[in-house]
């Protein structure tokens, strides 16, 4: 094999994983929400709130990890608001999700103006740097692609088996799945439907905060308005295309990330193939999967329906 091609492949894989990480993090959070029977269209707004909170945290507390923590706390609070509205008040989930998106744009843009002023000159903040894992990073192709990434990327990849285990091999996951499929049956065996949904929503929202933090402290090193740029909706697509499982979400995120990495390269090279079709791909594939043209994806049975205890 030509060493040049090896490099190109390795670089491409590396870029793919970098693009896939925020989608993956948000998607894993969404898997938990959706498995508990909650549709969250507001993930885009949650991620956006995560991006700014992370920058603020890093700026004032001096470390990127503190930024992640602040992002998790603020999106956790938004998650709590979301949960209160859709679980306790039983407001329509789609409508509240849209409201969260609008709130995300409004809050982050206003706060950024107030905190950083109009000039938006980016102050220096602590961001994530790539951390090369010794030995492993020497493996050809996979080494530089997989083991020369930011710590948060390793974390995201590690979350896949962990959440898979949690969802399918523990009583916690069993409760979440039961509540999303048939809340009444879960209720009759003594499971607190409201608690499970609250926990899934808040936990999922916190993961969307981590996804946001990765965008503003990893991919870029500052906040810019609307910087999530549809990645929340792509995460939503990844969950559906990945059939509501963490491993499926990883596959979908890598596929969509590859599309993204490819289109960036194509744009840079001035390729004549229109890159926009690659950008459309996640959405089209998701609709195709939802309609069941190839291996139908069926959402949890109680998805989107508020639960009323008799």
């Amino acid at each position, binding site marked *: 094999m030509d060493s040049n091609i090896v490099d190109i492949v390795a670089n491409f894989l590396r870029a793919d994983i970098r693009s896939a990480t925020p989608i993956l993090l948000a998607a894993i959070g969404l898997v938990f929400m959706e498995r508990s029977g909650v549709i969250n269209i507001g993930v885009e707004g949650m991620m956006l709130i995560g991006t700014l909170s992370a920058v603020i945290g890093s700026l004032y507390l001096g470390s990127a990890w503190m930024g992640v923590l602040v992002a998790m706390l603020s999106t956790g609070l938004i998650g709590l608001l979301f949960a209160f509205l859709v679980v306790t008040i039983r407001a329509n989930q789609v409508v509240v999700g849209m409201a969260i998106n609008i709130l995300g744009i409004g809050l982050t843009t206003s706060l950024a103006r107030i905190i950083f002023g109009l000039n938006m000159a980016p102050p220096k903040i602590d961001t994530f740097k790539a951390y090369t894992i010794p030995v492993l990073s020497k493996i050809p192709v996979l080494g530089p692609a997989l083991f020369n990434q930011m710590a948060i990327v390793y974390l995201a990849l590690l979350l896949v088996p962990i959440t898979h285990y949690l969802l399918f*091999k*523990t*009583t*916690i*996951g*069993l*409760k979440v*799945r*039961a509540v999303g*499929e*048939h809340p*009444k*049956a*879960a209720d*009759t*065996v*003594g*499971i607190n439907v409201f608690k499970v949904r609250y926990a899934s929503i808040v936990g999922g929202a916190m993961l969307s905060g981590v996804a946001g933090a990765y965008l503003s402290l990893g991919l870029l090193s500052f906040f810019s308005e609307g910087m999530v740029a549809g990645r929340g909706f792509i995460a939503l697509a990844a969950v559906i295309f990945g059939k509501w499982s963490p491993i499926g979400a990883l596959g979908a995120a890598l596929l969509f990330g590859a599309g993204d990495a490819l289109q960036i390269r194509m744009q840079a090279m001035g390729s004549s193939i229109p890159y926009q079709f690659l950008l459309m791909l996640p959405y089209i594939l998701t609709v195709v999967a939802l309609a069941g043209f190839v291996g139908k994806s069926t959402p*949890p*049975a109680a998805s989107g329906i508020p639960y009323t205890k008799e």
Partner: protein
Amino acid sequence: MSAYLRMINICKQFPGVLANDHVNFELFKGEVHALLGENGAGKSTLMNILSGLYPPTSGEIWLNGKEVHVNSPKTAIELGIGMVHQHFMLIPALSVVENIVLGIKQKREPFLDLKELAADIQNLAMQYGMKIDPFAKVWQISVGEQQRVEIIKALYRGAELLILDEPTAVLTPQETEELFKMIRSLTKKGHTVVFISHKLNEVKEISDRITVLRQGKNVGTVQNSSITKEELAKMMVGREIKLCSSKGTGVKKDVILELKEIEAQNNKHLKALKKISLEVRKGEILGIAGVDGNGQSELVEAITGLRTITHGKVLLNGKDVTNMSPRTILDSSVSHIPEDRHLMGLVMTGTLKENAILINYHKPPFSSGAFLNWKYITNYTCKLIKEYDVRTPSEDVLAKNLSGGNQQKLILARELDRNPDLLIAMHPTRGLDVGAIEYIYNKITEQRDKGSAVLLVSTELDEILTLSDRIAVIYEGQIMGIIDCQFADIEHLGLMMAGTPIDQIKKQVS
């Protein structure tokens, strides 16, 4: 023998109905005790109280000589009381083992060793001679197997007492045999089983003792061995029989509706109607009697075009309308008072005007061309409200703001005003007060006298006997027999409703 469980003076008041009226109920350990009664007799309510689904309005429950308070299904199972509902509480997307262990604290919480658990469950099932595949998803297995899963789920949670609510309603005859074997091995191992049913044959076959409920009251508890089917039927339906009101002229008039061996499936794709043939003539009311869930809904839906007919023919005035669209059938002079006014009969969040034209809106004078004729519709609605005495502040209020009786009157007005050749009425008086019932009876009879053919479907035997000229009894999607009202015999009707065909009854008599 001292009682294992005693329910003392149980009362349950629902809005408008006293579902259990000072019921006393006793169980001995290790027996199969059948709870027999018609629909609405209060069987399920009594057992739902015992399994912690509803609190009783008053009364006590004693278990093993101690008073207990069962305030949730969870406490019930902790006391060893498990119930298998008619509608299973299983989660189709999860596997059998996941369903069984759901909500149980694990040895190494929160870790779940599904393989070990599956082995345990297999063992348990084997002890009772049951076969299950613990890793199959519930949606993949048959209804009979799902029931087995429900039973094992209760046993796994330590149920001593097992309540089975109409367990054979969803089973094939072979599966029923299997179930009975299971029940016998359960009692052999010391479990107690309550078997809720309205089917006499099955009750006679499986139970040790039988308690009959009627209109929320305990009519009596008897030893199975010391009572006949006929006596049980009488206990179950026995009441003052109203005199048949039909004139029964005996002159045969034109056939309006004719069913020729029609068959159809229910929503679970099981055969719900089996070769049903009958005819309804001009100027007569044919009553379809039977316990709920024996194919009545499917029958009405098949006739009105709402359900696909898989075999046979429906003729209206001699014209074949099998599997025609609902619109075509309604437009061939058919009116339909549907079984559920909330789900089907009315648009609850629509105004009375919008509901009054629900069937006829597409025809002049209600509309002309593409447009609705609101002026005419308003006058028409006011006319209906006046003629049918619908109590409402105005024709612009929403249907949901009317009382149940007035809602039903509105449907009646809409359907009868079309002066149909065929009127199909299903449970026309369900949930209504006496005044409204009387009114609706009069209107239906009037319509018959005007020359309409009426198909009346009801689970209220009184209603059938009051209104019908002829009575057909439906049981598991089959017609057990059709008799003239004047020759109707309550005992025979009871036997037919519990699954004995009329030919057999006649043979026994002669």
